């Protein structure tokens, strides 16, 4: 069994998720080689062959060009599996590779049971085992699931690669995240509002509870997209990563992209009307209640105590 691991570079830096790919290959007991569009100046700590293309020449994102270089490496190495992170880079490139190889592509793998990939369905409410009918397979791995037991080490044997394929897409650079205002990453208590708050006026209720607990309020993505809260309050993969002592999730289902931002919280309280909401899986206390009734009562009691 041989795996080709597709590492990632962002803004001149190697992404840590690269080591999740290594951990995955180790868990499978697979031999591996790595592919990266990056730079000599920042190589992964990896004990194996690294096919390296220069990101200053081919840019960090160009699916057409990266696809061609990857296919060249695949032809040479003949891996059984091509492994990506389930990231903006991975889910863009992986389908292109799977189609070119005529191979099955399983997205967002969270486990491998007896060689069979397992993926979440319906926001993580269900799990699905996928039977792959092709000999080669492409997978993207959900972030944070596979991790190395020991610190990564080693230095790769670098094989430089090039291509002359024409470009259809033009990458024009990055736009940084909005900053300023609240810094949730420093808050000890965060009370977050999810879509379950129902309407923008109810943000106030969440803010009041946060205040009563001496913390800040955060939000899930739909709340931010609807402009009920500012972007810098969004917790999750595309928002902030937080690690407070106490995280209170109000009307948040617990989609994987939200969990990714808050699972380092020490103590998690979830308030939800749906007993089966995936947030229940990681909550230390799961309060089954309508937040519109429960939150004001809780806030009032807290205010009266202090």
């Amino acid at each position, binding site marked *: 069994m041989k795996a080709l691991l597709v590492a990632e570079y*962002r803004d001149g830096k190697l992404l840590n998720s690269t080591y999740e790919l290594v951990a995955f290959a180790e868990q499978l007991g697979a031999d591996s080689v790595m592919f990266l569009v990056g730079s000599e100046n920042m190589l992964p700590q990896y004990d194996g062959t690294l096919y390296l293309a220069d990101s200053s020449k081919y840019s960090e*994102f160009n*699916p057409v060009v990266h696809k061609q270089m990857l296919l060249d490496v695949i032809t040479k190495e003949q891996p059984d599996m091509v492994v990506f992170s389930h990231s*903006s880079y991975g889910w*863009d490139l992986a*389908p*292109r590779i*799977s*189609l070119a190889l*005529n191979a099955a*592509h399983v*997205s967002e793998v969270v486990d491998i049971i007896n060689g069979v990939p397992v993926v*979440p*369905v*319906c*926001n*993580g*409410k*269900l*799990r699905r*085992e*996928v*039977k*792959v*009918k*092709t000999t080669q397979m492409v997978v993207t791995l959900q972030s944070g699931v596979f991790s190395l037991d020991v610190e990564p080490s080693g230095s790769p044997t670098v094989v430089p690669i090039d291509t002359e394929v024409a470009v*259809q*897409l033009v*990458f*024009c650079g*990055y*736009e*940084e*995240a909005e900053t300023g205002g609240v810094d949730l990453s420093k808050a000890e208590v965060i009370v977050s509002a999810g879509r379950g708050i129902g309407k923008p006026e109810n943000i106030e209720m969440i803010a009041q509870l946060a205040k009563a*607990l*001496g913390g800040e309020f955060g939000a899930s993505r*739909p709340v931010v*997209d609807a402009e009920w809260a500012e972007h810098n309050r969004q917790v999750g993969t*595309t*928002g902030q*990563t937080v690690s407070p002592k*106490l995280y209170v999730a109000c009307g948040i289902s617990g989609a994987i992209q939200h969990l990714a931002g808050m699972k380092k919280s*020490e*103590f998690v*309280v979830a308030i939800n009307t749906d*007993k*089966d*909401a995936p947030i*229940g*899986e990681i909550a*230390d*206390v*799961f*309060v089954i209640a309508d937040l519109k009734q*429960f939150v004001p009562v*809780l806030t009032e*009691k*807290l205010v009266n*105590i*202090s």
Partner: protein
Amino acid sequence: MQILVCIKQVPDMESKFKVNADGTWYEGTDLAWRMNEYDEYAVEQAVQLKEQVGAADVTVLSIGPERVKEALKKALAMGADRAVQLIDDFAYQKDPFQIASVIAAFAREKKFDLIFTGMQSQDRGSGQVGVLIAEMLSIPSITTIVDFSFSEGQIVAKRELEGGIKSIVKTKVPALVTCQLGLNTPRYPTLPNIMKAKRKELLSISISELLKVEGKQETAKMYFPEKKGGGLVLEGDVGDLADQLIKILDEKIGVLAR
């Protein structure tokens, strides 16, 4: 300008799911169905583009059983011009490769200038169909867009990356984009537009006319994740619940002892 929007109908994610009899998907009965959230952004962007360029025709397409007509009608009421249902009672058994092949087969002759899809479906979440359609049609695709503009045959889109960073990407049409949450604010169909939509074309074609390939993967087994337990579940009167929670917070983390 010819525009295609691909939409899927999915269950409300707050539904109480059950695994079906052969254990390979969720039971479809007793669920509330709606348009896939990501696809609402796709429909909205297509309609906005039509409003911008004037001379445009927006076709909305969905694969599935009779009920998907509801999602198509919503898209018509949002401003799409015509709808196509590819009838398939077993769409849930098709893999992303088959679904994309069918859509590409439909789109190939029609020479769409722009194709919009959601970045993923809320139920299966594979996130592959859009890119696969584009690759099959040999046109460029841009994924996970949160900003879109079009002028003189060129698209400039912002792709969302992790951690709130965006990247700016340009390409020429014909092209395909996959839409992410927050791209725009999908409009609610107004009553007059719902009435108008009733007179728009809704064509139904059997999927067998377009499906020519075997799947590369299938669901072997579907189940609920094992409950890890550990967490305390509280239920009952809100006043009691609040007292219990305050006591726990005080004992466990002393949040009140500030």
